[in-house]
């Protein structure tokens, strides 16, 4: 083997080794980053759980009742609303509109805008 060929082989193998090692180092670095991110994510999720606990705790009937008793002068007057005290208001935006069927003609109508015209007439 000529000396030049030996050197070329040496350089190539050295480069390949350096490439392999760099890759491994990068993989390890990324691994650490992933770890840190996972930790941050789990910390955030845990914090979320803790905040949720506080919300549930504050919203719990026991807590509401306690706050009510503290603030109210006559807690015995407390009464749960019955059916007659509640007025359900209809939302004008949620007015029932005729449902277009899923048939092929209906879909075609939708594309051509025929169905929407029909709806406009109904509303008149």
């Amino acid at each position, binding site marked *: 083997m000529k000396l030049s060929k030996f050197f070329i082989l040496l350089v190539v193998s050295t480069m390949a080794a350096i490439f392999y090692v760099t890759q491994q180092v990068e993989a390890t670095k990324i691994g650490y980053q992933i*770890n840190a991110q996972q930790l941050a994510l789990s910390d955030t999720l845990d914090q979320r759980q803790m905040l949720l*606990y506080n919300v549930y705790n504050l919203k719990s009937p026991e807590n509401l009742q306690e706050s009510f008793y503290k603030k109210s002068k006559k807690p015995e007057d407390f009464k*749960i609303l019955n059916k007659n005290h509640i007025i359900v208001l209809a939302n004008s935006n949620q007015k029932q509109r005729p449902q277009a069927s899923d048939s092929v003609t209906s879909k075609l109508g939708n594309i051509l805008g025929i169905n929407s015209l029909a709806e406009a007439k109904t509303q008149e």
Partner: protein
Amino acid sequence: MSKTSRYTRLRSIFLIYIFIFLFFSLRLIYVQIIDYPHLSGLAYRQHNLVIKVEPARGTIYDRNLRPLAFSINLESIYANPRMIKDPVGAAHLLSDILNIDDAYLVSKFTKKKAFVWVVRKISPETANKVKKLKLSYIGFTKEPKRFYPNDKMACHIIGFAGLDNKGLEGVEAMCDNYLRGKPGWRYTKQDAKQRELPSYKNKSVPAVDGLNVVLTIDSVLQSIAEMQLDVIMQKFHPKAATIIAVDPSTGKILALANRPNFAPNNFQKFEALARKNRAVTDIFEPGSVFKIVTASAALQEGKVTPNDKFFCENGEFKPFPSYTLHDYHPYGWLTFRQVVENSSNIGTGKVARLLGPQALYNYIRAYGFGQKTGIDLAGEVSGIIRPPSQWSKTSPWNIPIGQEVAITPIQAVTAIAAIANNGVLMRPYVIEKIQDNKGRVLKEVSPVVVRRVLSEKTAKLMQNILAGVVESGTGKAAKIENYRVAGKTGTAQKVEPGGFYSKDKYVGSFIGFVPAENSMIACIVTVDEPQPIHFGAVVAAPGFSKFVGQSIDYLKSKNVLLPANQKGGY
């Protein structure tokens, strides 16, 4: 320098190199071949790591999916005592932050171990304070801790889980298999600082989180029950009290509360007696509430009609010379309906004579007394009901009025619910369904019909008679505005350890359902040893009225506010 001396020096250097080369070669051979198994084992243990992945314990919800128990991950602190050079100093450093005794920490830090727990499941603030110290011998790990956002509410149903997240009581224990989940693991590598290298993660089996349990109880109804129990405890200072509310048509428990109670978040601080679920574990002599069994049995067997008349002996009756039966108020002639309304012991005794011991016993059993109801709560007892062959001479007079028998509050409410449900006895239950985190239902409990106890006609007749108890009888304090209430009061003397009846210890109770027809709620209120008044009509009936009245208002208003597709069920 002479040629010889130069040659000698070169040879010496060569020999040194040869010697060094040989030394390293031999060392290499030793390391790579001779000591290979030992060293490779050490390296394997140092680099490779199998991490157990803990599953998240499932959540317990009420029937409206309000959480009653769920888990939060908290930091736990451990130490490596082998790395601690000054245990006293280390203990002093941590004792103030962790609020732990110095001596306790020193005892931990002087152990000849590589791992000791310092403190487990601490608040994030405390953990951060310790982290800021950057102590090399201290490590942190996260562990899930169970939290109960409603504090003491429904504590006897929910129960609690221990430090290792194993359910110990209540639904936490009953459904532990569902809630616990399955731990997973991952096989990975770590660096010299024991940091995990995820890029080298090989194999892993993910943890399977625990399933969620949905209960039949309603937080709002439960809260109202707890509130009424507090009022009863304040007014009458009883030893214990219980409220149970059931949906008669299904057997679903809507609320179940006992006093004394405990806080599941700090269950260690409470006595075992406070943790007792008296609704299913305690037996009591029911007294007059048991007359519903005698009365309905006599009606069902056709032995009486509501207008049949009985002479109530003006308050004192001697069925045989050594035994006297008393009424609280003296009555003359009463119709059967009035016997029930006024809770006449003498009248009920005479009705039971017409029925006969065996028939009465059969109905007592048919209502489920003397056997477990099968409720899905731990510790239920059967009560004490003796067969007629073991009855004494006084038993045919005592048992019909609720003496010489011992029942649990859950049995009593199940029985009254059977009358409310037109004669059909349902199995009570608190676990409605098991579902995963995505809301997919994996198991749903359906109402179970135990048996028909009364015909529909008899049940409706009983509903009407029991409504009369509240309208014009002993249970007037249980009236609710706008609703027809049916129910029965009970005041029973407690039996002392010597076997005789106490003169100052009573159990006051009220059982009933509302509305009297097509009822929505059946309920029992029992008050154990109330002072200074002990009558069920005074200590239990008003609590029943307030609890059921508010509950019905809530259920009805909830039905108005619910979207159309969720309406219908209470």
